[in-house]
């Protein structure tokens, strides 16, 4: 399975808009939403069926039994995450606890145990030979990278023989992005022609290059700032990155999305540019890698 991951660094540049269009155009049999903090792909890839849902268990978290606790304060002193506080008794702040179990280790009376916690929910849609894997992390949880790995695993095990997969990524460059990068064949970076967008694009390209993943760039709403679009083009030339498309600003795009349609479902300028972008991206994705394959 060849996997295309769509990333952007900066949020709101159009990852999900482009991912949903690609899913439509490719008639993809496997796709996933790895933006587990703020998943949106399910809103636009109309799913006629109910998802199979399952709880996602993150690392265990500490719990203090007040009946056994002798107020020795050792757990509080040893916790590097300031997750233990004193109210009427010693307590664990579940949002601050990272589940390292140091408190359990130091407690002289065995008052602390590590307990399972549900940190999110995985959803799997299987319909007409197509598999869509998604999830959402509960508020304030911190193990989004692990959940991203689960989303990808779920997609893989259900769609082993799919020719390729399209994965919608999350903004940023941290834990969930790093988890989504592992094992993919190509990254498409959706850039935005603003000073902020350029700075963020450079950081995500740098992050992806640590994994040695083949990377191409497209510019969304390119005509909102032609000067900055030129800067992106120059940057790609300098770095030897393929610039695979430029999508114009198009008020029809917002209308389509708000009706739950993709931008290639309606005849509009952004949709037409996205079709071209898709063809170019697909070609690069399916190209055989030079050198010995794994």
């Amino acid at each position: 399975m060849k996997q295309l991951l769509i990333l952007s660094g900066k949020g709101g540049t159009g990852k999900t808009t482009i991912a949903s269009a690609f899913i439509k155009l490719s008639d993809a049999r496997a796709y996933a939403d790895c933006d587990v903090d703020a998943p949106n792909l399910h809103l636009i890839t109309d799913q006629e069926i109910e998802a199979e849902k399952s709880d996602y268990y993150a690392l265990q978290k500490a719990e203090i039994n007040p009946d056994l606790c002798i107020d020795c304060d050792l757990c509080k002193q040893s916790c590097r995450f300031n997750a233990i506080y004193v109210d009427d008794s010693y307590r664990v702040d579940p949002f601050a606890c990272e589940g390292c179990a140091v408190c359990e280790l130091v407690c002289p009376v065995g008052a602390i145990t590590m307990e399972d916690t549900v940190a999110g929910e995985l959803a799997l849609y299987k319909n007409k030979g197509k598999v869509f894997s998604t999830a959402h992390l509960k508020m304030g949880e911190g193990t989004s990278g692990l959940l991203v790995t689960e989303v990808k695993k779920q997609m893989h095990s259900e769609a082993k023989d799919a020719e390729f997969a399209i994965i919608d990524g999350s903004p940023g460059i941290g834990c969930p992005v790093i988890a989504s990068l592992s094992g993919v064949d190509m990254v498409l970076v959706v850039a935005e022609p603003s000073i902020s967008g350029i700075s963020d694009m450079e950081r995500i390209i740098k992050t992806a290059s640590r994994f040695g993943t083949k990377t191409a760039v497209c510019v969304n709403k390119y005509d909102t700032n032609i000067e900055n679009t030129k800067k992106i083009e120059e940057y790609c030339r300098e770095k030897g990155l393929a610039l695979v498309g430029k999508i114009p600003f198009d008020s029809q795009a917002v209308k389509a999305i708000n009706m739950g349609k993709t931008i290639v479902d309606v005849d509009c300028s952004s949709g037409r540019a996205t079709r071209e972008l898709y063809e170019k991206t697909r070609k690069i994705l399916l190209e055989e890698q030079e050198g010995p394959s794994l």
Partner: protein
Amino acid sequence: MKIAVLSGKGGTGKTLVSVNLAAAAEDSIYIDCDVEEPNGHLFFKPKDLVEEDVTVKIPEVDNQLCNGCKKCVEFCRFNALAYAKDRLIVFDDICHSCGGCMMVCPVKALTEKDKSIGKVQMGRSEDVQVYTGILNTGEPSGIPIIERLLEESKAGDDKIILIDSPPGSSCTVMETIRDADYCILVAEPTVFGVHNLNMVYELVQLFKKPFGVVLNKSLEGENPAEDFCLERGINILGKIPFDSELGTLNSNAEIVVRKSEKYKELFTDLLDRVKKEVRHETTTNS
């Protein structure tokens, strides 16, 4: 007065709102907590920069002392340690710096060293003090940088502090609103925007934070985000129009309140409303 600006979805205008509110306020502090993709400094272009490294503790093994008991490997819940080919290996990137491995080592073969994960930058832009956190690429967690930023800024507690949060509703966002007096939720008029607004709406309620919504990129006609607020009786603090003048200035990293009288007025009014809200909160809660 600490005001956190958040959105759930990326690209709705958190930085636009927080940068311009900080610029509209006199003598304020702007803290960029979106350490994965910090952008506020591109607008403020702060001067007299002071930089500080942010480090975390990472275990270091003395393989001469290590007796191969693997107690540390068994203890580490993050799988950041492995014992292979007669030696202990530490995976720096997934270590959470809890210190547990050192505690369980019976022969004291583990010590800790500092590892840089990024930096904080402090500088000035006119009368705004600008704090920026920058995570090194390849590092998974910016939490220690966010903690340092919030710590550094404590000196200016009497000022108006604008906190530019990362997108989402995960641990990093929570960190930024923990001590906030008020939260501004920035929403855009799309179904995506509403879906993600709902997430941060739940988050601020969970933390019992007073909050209001700013509707960005507002067009004439239907606005799903506005409908969302009206249905739930959520306080709408103001609307920022979808406007090409604003778009161009903003995409060129200009601060609109320093460039346009119209926007100076808009953001000053918005700031006044927020201040009033915060004062109201403090009197009703004390």
